[in-house]
């Protein structure tokens, strides 16, 4: 929807605009800066975003500027004409217009036109046009007369069409209007007569134009309040002929024709125009935005102090003279749709048409590759392609498997699957596995009693599945609290979202011990903790925990004392594993999974506090186990690393600190963790202290290799 924003006034200085308004507002080479030429002697450069003038230049008393100043986009210089014939060129550094470059021309200038990407043009009052460079090379050159005697140039505009400059100007003679289109690549000037059609009495008040590929769409606002459109071809078929153009009515009566200062019209984009003038009923002047396509008024703004009937539009700003000050109204038009307006845009997908996912086999690109290429290019997005490109490989064993999946019993499916897996890597292996899983999961959803656990586990272990291929798999496993399948998924899927990881963690922590005992989880990541209850080991471990730092020497605070009072209790608490081995195996699977901190933190907050404490205790236990040996690793085949343990401790504390700190049973744990951090800090500070000694040791080591300044050795080359 098009909208007008809050207006602001550019100049606090009152322009010497008078009742005739300004000469012009033109863009400068910087996006935000505009040249304003008043009707007298002054040119001001404004920076719109700062709402302040950057520079101001005036011609001498007695001289008068006759054409609005423009910027030469190629050089960044400004050009103005005063007293009809004197051309001045200057730049930002110049102070006095009197001292800048001056060229006196042989004919009177109507306008200077400049757009980005080409040299400025000078349009003379007689209708002749010259490039600035060519004109400056010979300022006194003879200027021919193009238009007839009493014709007056009313309006002009300069476009770039396909990189070629095109100039259009409208002249008037005794109430008849003519349009001239000058092409600069072919140097062709075409003349058209504008016909009014039926309504002969109206006077044209204002023009505006836009271009597309073939036509200049010239819009005119007549005194009867209607907007008319005339299409002028850019490339004339026969340039010599004088042709007539009929205008067509775009829409009726937007302003009343009898305003004091006239009305103005400007095109904003292909669908919108801005009209300045009084609406029919009201007497105050108004700026209104109209949609031509729907002939609707989008917005309007009252301008109570009256305007000069002039309107300029650059970038996103509308400029006009409101009262006696230059006013800028930012204009915005966001893309809108009817659906958006009715609030229906969001749910474009109909729940009835459910897309059945199919899988692409990336390893056999033959026909399916072709097929994919024939489809829309937007399907190149990988994720999409996986789902959208339909492909049904018709290989017998897999086909059989798929049909089994849809109908037969669990047992039967298992047998078929085993058969299929025994054949192993057929070219469409990935596809079949994917389709099988989808089929199974769909059936699971449809029939609550159907849960082919063994099949799903076998499929997971094929290493071809990932979370994004079958998100339903983990969802169903979570529903069924199937920790064994969840553990497998955590181990084999590389792309599990943090939300799901956290849901798994919740189940792993909450599931009862006796129900855990029945499951058959993979225990390879858990080491045998039965030997860790021995007391001798414990002593050793406390020492290593301190890492050479003795807490007694440190200023003992209350917690420390409390801890020292009952070291026996502490020992017991820290040595025994707080969870049963099966739960430990599940938790280790969580520790190994990939995650991103930012996404995991919010979900960790949902875990109940006693579970958090349990997990923390387990992590702390793992840490103690880690620090028992010199390599800082845990025994076992695939144990969690120290970094993983520390990261999870930090994450849990970050997410739940306020809760945990209030729990009496977590107090001891927190104190232990606090001591741990403290000891680490002191170890580092000690290390920093003895760094110099280390360096000396290193130097000594190097000197051993150093053979002195001179030696004689034997070299054997072979």
């Amino acid at each position: 929807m098009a909208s007008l924003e809050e207006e602001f006034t550019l100049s606090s200085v009152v322009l010497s605009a008078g009742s005739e308004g300004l000469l012009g507002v033109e863009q400068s080479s910087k996006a935000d800066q505009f040249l304003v030429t008043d009707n007298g002697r002054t040119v001001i450069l404004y920076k719109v975003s700062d709402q302040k003038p950057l520079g101001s230049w005036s011609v001498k008393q007695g001289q008068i500027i006759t054409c609005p100043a423009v910027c030469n986009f190629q050089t960044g210089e400004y050009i103005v004409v005063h007293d009809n014939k004197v051309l001045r060129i200057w730049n930002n550094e110049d102070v006095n217009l009197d001292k800048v470059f001056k060229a006196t021309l042989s004919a009177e200038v109507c306008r200077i036109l400049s757009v980005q990407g080409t040299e400025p043009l000078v349009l003379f009052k007689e209708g002749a046009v010259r490039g600035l460079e060519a004109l400056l090379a010979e300022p006194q050159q003879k200027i021919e007369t193009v238009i007839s005697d009493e014709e007056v140039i009313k309006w002009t505009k300069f476009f770039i069409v396909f990189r070629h400059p095109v100039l259009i100007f409208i002249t008037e003679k005794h109430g008849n209007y003519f349009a001239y289109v000058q092409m600069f690549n072919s140097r062709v000037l075409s003349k058209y007569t504008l016909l009014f059609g039926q309504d002969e009495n109206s006077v044209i008040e204002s023009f505006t134009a836009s271009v597309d590929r073939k036509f200049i769409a010239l819009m005119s606002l007549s005194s009867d309040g209607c907007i008319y459109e005339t299409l002028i071809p850019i490339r004339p078929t026969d340039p010599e002929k004088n042709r007539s153009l009929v205008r067509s009515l775009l829409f009726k009566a937007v302003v009343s024709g009898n305003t004091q200062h006239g009305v103005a019209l400007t095109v904003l984009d292909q669908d919108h125009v801005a009209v300045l003038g009084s609406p029919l009923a009201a007497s105050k002047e108004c700026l209104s935005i109209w949609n031509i396509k729907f002939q609707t008024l989008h917005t309007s703004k009252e301008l109570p102090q009256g305007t000069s009937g002039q309107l300029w539009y650059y970038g996103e700003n509308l400029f006009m003279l409101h009262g006696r000050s230059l006013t800028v109204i930012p204009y915005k038009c966001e893309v809108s749709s009817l659906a958006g307006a009715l609030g229906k845009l969001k749910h474009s997908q109909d729940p009835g048409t459910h897309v059945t996912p199919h899988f692409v086999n990336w390893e056999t690109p033959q026909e399916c590759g072709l097929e994919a290429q024939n489809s829309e290019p937007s399907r190149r997005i990988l994720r999409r392609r996986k789902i959208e490109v339909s492909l049904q490989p018709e290989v017998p064993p897999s086909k059989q498997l798929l049909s089994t999946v849809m109908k037969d019993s669990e047992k039967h499916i298992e047998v078929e699957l085993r058969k299929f897996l025994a054949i192993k890597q057929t070219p469409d292996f990935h596809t079949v596995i994917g389709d099988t899983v989808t089929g199974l999961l769909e059936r699971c959803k449809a029939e609550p009693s159907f849960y082919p656990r063994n099949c799903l586990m076998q499929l997971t272990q094929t290493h071809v599945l990932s979370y994004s291929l079958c998100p339903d798999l983990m969802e169903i496993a979570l529903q069924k609290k199937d920790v064994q399948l969840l553990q497998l998924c955590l181990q084999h899927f590389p792309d599990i979202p943090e939300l799901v990881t956290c849901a798994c963690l919740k189940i792993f922590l909450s599931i009862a011990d006796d129900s855990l005992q029945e499951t058959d989880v993979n225990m390879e990541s858990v080491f045998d903790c039965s030997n860790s209850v021995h007391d001798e080991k414990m002593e050793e471990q406390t020492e290593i925990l301190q890492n050479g730092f003795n807490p007694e020497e440190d200023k003992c605070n209350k917690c420390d004392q409390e801890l020292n009072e009952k070291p026996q209790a502490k020992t017991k608490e820290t040595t025994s594993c707080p969870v049963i081995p099966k739960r430990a195996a599940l938790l280790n699977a969580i520790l190994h999974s990939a995650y991103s901190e930012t996404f995991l933190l919010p979900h960790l907050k949902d875990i109940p506090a006693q579970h958090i404490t349990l997990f923390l205790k387990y992590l702390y236990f793992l840490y103690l186990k880690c620090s028992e040996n010199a390599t800082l690793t845990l025994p076992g085949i695939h144990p969690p690393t120290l970094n993983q343990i520390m990261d999870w401790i930090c994450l849990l504390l970050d997410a739940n600190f306020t809760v945990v700190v209030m729990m009496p049973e977590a107090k001891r744990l927190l104190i232990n963790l606090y001591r741990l951090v403290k000891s680490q800090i002191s170890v580092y500070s000690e290390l920093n202290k003895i760094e110099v000694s280390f360096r000396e040791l290193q130097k000594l080591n190097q000197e051993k290799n150093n053979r002195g300044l001179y030696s004689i050795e034997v070299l054997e080359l072979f």
Partner: protein
Amino acid sequence: MGEFKVHRVRFFNYVPSAIRCVAYNNHSNRLAVSRTDGTVEIYNLSANYFQEKFFPGHESRATEALCWAEGQRLFSAGLNGEIIEYDLQALKIKYAMDAFGGPIWSMAASPSGSQLLIGCEDGSVKLFQITPDKIQFERNFDRQKSRILSLSWHPSGTHIAAGSIDYISVFDVKSGSAVRKMIVDRQYMGVSKRKCIVWGVAFLSDGTIISVDSAGKVQFWDSATGTLVKSHLIANADVQSIAVANQEDSFVVGTAEGTVFHFQLVPVTSNSSEKQWVRTKPFQHHTHDVRTVAHSPTSLISGGTDTHLVIRPLMEKLEVKNYDAALRKITFPHRRLISCSRKRQLLLFQFAHHLELWRLGSTVATGTVEAMCLLAVSPDGNWLAASGTSAGVHLHCTVPAYNFPVTAMAIAPNTNNLVIAHSDQQVFEYSIPDKHYTDWSRTVQKHGFHHLWLQRDTPITHISFHPKRPMHILLHDAYMFCIIDKSLPLPNDKTLLYNPFPPTNESDVVQRRTAHAFKISKIYKPLLFMDLLDERTLVAVERPLDDIIAQLPPPIKKKKFGT
């Protein structure tokens, strides 16, 4: 190949001077480097980073600034208050001119290359016009309170920025007056330092001035309004240098902690046209102060007190990812500093300002080597070969031109074959009497060198011959010593070029099959010189990097452990 007795010499007490300035020339892809002893070196980045020209320094000529102007003209200025122009053809100083402003701290050539600006101790900024054969004083700008430490031209040439102590001034070149003065915050991490020295400024075409200062800040200023736009605190010590890419989309700064930071102008979000300066990559290739940086279109160049010249290519700017894309660290000069007299077993060491002559001992135990300072040069051979810097070799006739500079050459005693090594690691053998390349050389060129041989990044600095075995050529660079046996087959890319272990239980047949012409030893490094004393005796002069580092001032201490 046999055994050699090697005199392993490590008493060549050579310490390169710290690098003070680098100046990159875009037209010729050359790099000028000046050192604190006044030495100026010119590296040809197109010719495998070869140091092709060299102007010896003098104690009285400490350079503080170095710049290229008018395309190929090189100027330096220093604390003796003189501006020096170098004659790059005759390899001498063309003239020195006193600027009468006291010690000169900074210099910058105008974007058009026709004017030279210097900043002096007395706070004056002086503009010189570069005439075809000299420079001419044009005028002084408004005098400032304190010394001008850095200068930068606006790309349009209308304004300049000058960094001084505690402030940055912007001058209008036309009028010579200061139009803006921007005060730099002295505060450093909440503590007010005594002074904030603006070590470097860069003026961008959109009017932004980037300054680096002694408080560890990189700051962006708007020169039109004189306001601070953005400030990055990047170091706990001074940020001493800045260089901006020609496209103004990236710049590099060097700090006293030895870190080089790369800043890039990147879009705020993808597809957005709004861009901002972001610190993208830190590099820690130096141990000491990075006194100077340069930004070539494809690489970041830095140098400083630790005497290394580091050229770090920007991977995203390189189209071909070959061996040239690797980091270069140039420490030793690409020329021979040592000569040896075989008969008398003498070694002559060349230092910046003196020579040392050492007599080699004959037993292992000898430690009593007396130092003598002598001047002695004794060229031998009936023919004289001369190589200019322009990659051609002149005898009585001219050896066919090759487009890479010569790094070493020697004439074999009996055959009068001239062996030439070029900076792209090619080796040619040219028969002087026959006036054409020898058959062996042609075979080598046809066959091509081993890829590992071509990937070495130091040039060959010395070539010599075995008096008794005419088929042998001895040559070395800084990291390997090689004897080429012309009678053996050449290695191809599949054979093992360098085998550090002696052939053990392999049969003779296998040994003969795997043997190839290049016998390489990498035991001695960095190797500055290696030559035969007699048939069975070699002399090797090494200069371990640790010995050089031990003689450098201590670097800024940084914590190694913890956070």
